[in-house]
């Protein structure tokens, strides 16, 4: 077994232990306060924990398989997220081919370029080529009704659901001095964990000590929750620094940057959901809503994390 594999297993068992404690806690609370399954708070909590089990198992499996596993997992997540996003955007028949290209050509190509490690291409493929080509395809159909809105909404979907999401597997392609290339999957585990823990602590502290809403009337997020969440993400980052090439101080800063951009990303998503008049993006992850509900902060964090790593550490 390689050092990377044993590190993944260590993380996996650690996370499972944590989830086991949370599951036992839920079962205890259920036995005590809602034995018939009739306490909505406990049932929601348990549904979420079950979804977490599924996600931890899937991500761990993908990391163990390595590059192909991670590409396939995030490729599917991108597909599901793009589907949720584009279901709610405004479109006309003139956009049909554009949208088909987005799903069936742009998305697979982006992941293919990442798999091949063509860095010069996958960092510009969507913002340059897709963003110029797709409006041409729509314009050729000759329907100018709310054209700019249609083009902009489609491109935002691609940016968020494909470009941002694909920067998670792209972390495997970064090369650092004295850091074996196969440890890239651990960098993914680091990013996902610090962002998700940052979200959890933001939620927890927001409930406990949150007073000042960041955007009243749009999102329940508070400044107190966000600051504590980011601080906790930095502590988690320090604890997981052994996964990264950054060193302890660097890992803390990177975790803080990722978590912070994730928190603000979630606010952007709250505004989009309000604009479209929905509470959740879909029903596909029980207790959590859709893929976009689950991924929103990771999506905003991934490109920032990728580029900061590239800028300051990659060699």
């Amino acid at each position, binding site marked *: 077994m390689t050092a990377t594999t044993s590190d993944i297993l260590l993380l996996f068992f650690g996370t499972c232990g944590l989830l086991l404690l949370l599951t036992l806690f839920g079962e205890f609370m259920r036995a005590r306060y809602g034995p018939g399954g009739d306490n909505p708070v406990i049932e929601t909590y348990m549904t979420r924990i079950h979804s977490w089990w599924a996600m931890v198992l899937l991500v761990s499996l993908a990391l163990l398989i390595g590059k192909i596993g991670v590409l396939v997992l995030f490729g599917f997540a991108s597909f599901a997220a793009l589907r949720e996003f584009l*279901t*709610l955007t405004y*479109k006309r*028949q003139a956009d*049909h081919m554009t949208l*088909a290209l987005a*799903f069936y050509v742009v998305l697979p190509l982006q992941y293919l370029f990442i798999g091949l490690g063509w860095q010069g291409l996958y960092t510009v493929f969507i913002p340059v080529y897709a963003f110029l080509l797709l409006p041409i395809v729509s314009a050729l159909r000759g329907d100018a009704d709310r054209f700019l*809105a249609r083009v902009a909404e489609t491109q935002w979907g691609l940016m968020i659901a494909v470009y941002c999401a694909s920067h998670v597997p792209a972390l495997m392609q970064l090369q650092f001095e004295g850091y074996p290339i196969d440890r890239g999957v651990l960098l993914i585990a680091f990013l996902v964990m610090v962002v998700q823990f940052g979200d959890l602590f933001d939620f927890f502290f927001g409930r406990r000590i949150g007073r000042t809403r960041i955007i009243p009337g749009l999102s329940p997020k508070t400044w107190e929750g966000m600051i504590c969440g980011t601080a906790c993400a930095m502590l988690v980052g320090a604890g997981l620094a052994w996964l990264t090439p950054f060193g302890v101080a660097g890992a803390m800063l990177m975790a803080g940057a990722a978590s912070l951009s994730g928190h603000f990303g979630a606010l952007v998503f709250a505004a989009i959901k309000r604009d479209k008049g929905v509470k959740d993006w879909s029903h596909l992850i029980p207790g959590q809503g859709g893929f976009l509900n689950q991924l929103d902060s990771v999506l905003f964090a991934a490109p920032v994390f990728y580029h900061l790593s590239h800028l300051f550490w990659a060699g």
Partner: protein
Amino acid sequence: MKRLFRPLRRLAANLVGHGIALFARFITAVRADWRGTDPVPRQRVYYANHVSNADMPMIWTVLPPNLRRQVRPVAAADYWLKTPLRAFIGPEVFNCVLVDRRPDKDAATGDPLENILAALGEGSSLILFPEGNRNMTEDPLLPFKAGLFNIAHAYPEVDLVPTWVANLTEVMPKGEVIPLPLMTTVIFGEPVHLRQGEDKDAFLSRAAAALVALKPEDHAP
């Protein structure tokens, strides 16, 4: 030989049915919203809006297996008997009730409603598109044909369940060949029955209104 092949054909039809349902779920993540009624095994006519050939498989997919076994979609014979593949999928996989909708044939074969009423007489539930044709207009529904009224008249105790298939126009607009993977929902409303002394036009417009009421709002910018 024939007797040997029949179970094999039925097995194949079963597998293809599961395959179609799986494909529909994978592409559109289609789900049922039982808004006005529950998925219980009563004899019903699910009457739905019709914008594409994918409408019927979508409704069929979201019905729970025990309901799916007793439901028979009403479909056009001229479409489903055109090729051997369609003749397998329509009558055998979906167990369609085939009706002849060609106007010149009407006089010769008599009432196209005959097969429909026979299927109801056997206790089957139906999936029915009362507009008669695919709706290519901007209006939410075309005027209903008389069929739904005749069914309600002949079988007043059968639940007529308004069934709105949402978002399929965008998945596959008329004239396009590639379906888009967008999320769709099949919304089941509160069952409608023929009222005492209600005439055809009043009933059909009430049934149409119950169906349109299920349509979700558009997401215009």
